[in-house]
């Protein structure tokens, strides 16, 4: 049984149909990437999973249970942790407060272990604990956002364009960390416009176009397919 199963998901914003029957699944231990052009509906898919957007139709099963209709904070507490587009850092809080809020919903105590792990992954974050988060650079904010999500001890981590707007060197770091987090046992659903990097790190991939999945398969196969190379990897001819 997959950890996450989505069947025929529809989401609309008023008259705009953002998702028109999306189905996908993510198995325990995988990195699955959802790629697609700007406006394809990638963010909307993640928002529906974490209950920030309400589907008009379709099913979302997490660990075999339907989570549609549950409030967002309960979905998060169940281990489905969403790092939103734009990182969602609380710019008025300190770096440390942001990090601690990652563990807010946990009732098991013992967040020290994850905290140490985050410090090891992102030494820059540790150096800036007392700073107001608004003073961080974009790359540091993304590291903080991922670190904060790890403090929640996610079972399934949802990442919305973690590489957006970052310098190439920082992008490398972020993707390296994504790989490490997955190797340590966390399942990841990764959304990216940077299809090249996403297909390198992922096991499987889905291609979303105007609210519908048009292709799916092993990431390596998609990266090799002509259609994907033309449309998403900028390879011509």
């Amino acid at each position, binding site marked *: 049984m997959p950890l996450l199963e989505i069947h025929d998901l529809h989401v609309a914003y008023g008259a705009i149909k953002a998702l028109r029957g999306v189905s996908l699944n993510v198995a325990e231990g995988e990195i699955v990437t959802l790629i697609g052009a700007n406006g394809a509906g990638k963010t909307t898919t993640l928002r529906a999973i974490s209950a920030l957007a309400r589907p008009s139709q379709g099913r979302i099963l997490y660990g075999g249970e339907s989570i549609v209709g549950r409030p967002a*904070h309960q979905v998060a*507490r169940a281990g489905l942790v*969403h790092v939103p587009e734009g990182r969602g850092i*609380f710019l*008025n809080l300190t770096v440390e407060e942001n990090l601690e809020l990652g563990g*807010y919903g946990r009732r098991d105590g013992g967040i020290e272990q994850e905290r140490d792990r985050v410090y090891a992954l992102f030494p820059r974050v540790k150096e800036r604990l007392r700073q107001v988060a608004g003073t961080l650079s974009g790359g540091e904010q993304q590291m903080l956002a991922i670190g904060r999500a790890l403090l*929640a001890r996610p079972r399934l981590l949802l990442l919305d364009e973690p590489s957006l707007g970052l310098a190439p060197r920082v992008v490398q770091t972020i993707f390296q960390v994504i790989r490490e987090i997955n190797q340590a046992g966390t399942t990841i659903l990764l959304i990216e416009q940077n299809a090249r990097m996403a297909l390198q790190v992922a096991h499987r991939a889905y291609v979303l176009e105007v609210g519908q999945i048009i292709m799916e398969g092993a990431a390596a196969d998609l990266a090799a397919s002509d259609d994907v190379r033309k449309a998403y990897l900028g390879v011509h001819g």
Partner: protein
Amino acid sequence: MADFVQTLETALAVGSLYALIALGYTMVYGILKFINFAHGDVVVLGAWISYTVAQWCLKRLAPADGPPLWLGPVVLACAMTVCGVLGFLIERLAYKPLRRAPRLNVLITAIGVSLLLQNVGQLDAVFGSSPVSMPALLPNPALVRMSFGGPGSSEVVIGLVDATIFVTAGLLMLALETIVYRTRLGAAMRAVSFNAETAALMGINANRIISFTFVTGSVLAAAAGFLYAMKYPGLNQPAHTIWVLLGLKAFVSAVIGGIGNVRGALLGGFVIAFVEQFGAFYISSNYRDVYVFALLIIILLIRPTGILGTPYREKV
């Protein structure tokens, strides 16, 4: 000199009342982005509950040698409890159903709640529509006497009542400041205030935080009402303009401090009281309200976000 110090002392006392009330306006605005116009009426309720409980106890006890010392804290606790429950109910019944409605709708609802509280308060079965006199719960001996100049010159006296106001208000502000800036709950409040949606992704239940905010603000308003009744025992009827002005000045305090900012509300309360009291003493007491609103206009012109308000922009 004595005049100056006496005015300073009054400004501090009045300022701590404004600050206590301003906290409720600013916390609610910070999280829900609307002005809870009914907040000032919770202060009035606090004062009138204090009067009612004090009166009832004194009638029952009929103490020969003045009210017992425990009566003050008991009255305060009753007022805080009633107002806390009321604050919770107001949010649940009036504002929560409008969580997704335009802010203007909520604002108009708040005005409605305010009118409802004022008019229910005036009913004979509730508090009635005539002024009353708050019984003295404390003796008011001079604790501090400062004389300026030689014997026979003017002196400044700080009595037990004012000292009680300073200590009580100071402790409550300290408690709130600690909760908001030094606890996980406080961090969650500030997170919801910054972005409720992202806060939900942290597992924060925004509805809980909102309820907590209303209860806390109302409890502080009750304390302000109680302390106000101690300092100015002639209580006007619940819909009197004097109460409206009190709420309005506290609201102005929150705005000039930077609405949504807890430390700003504290600062704003004292700034407003200083301007009002010093203006009234050194210029003319006829225009005491004018100074307050003139200051509001000036601050809004030179710093629209208030003294401590910061507009945040997301980095992309």
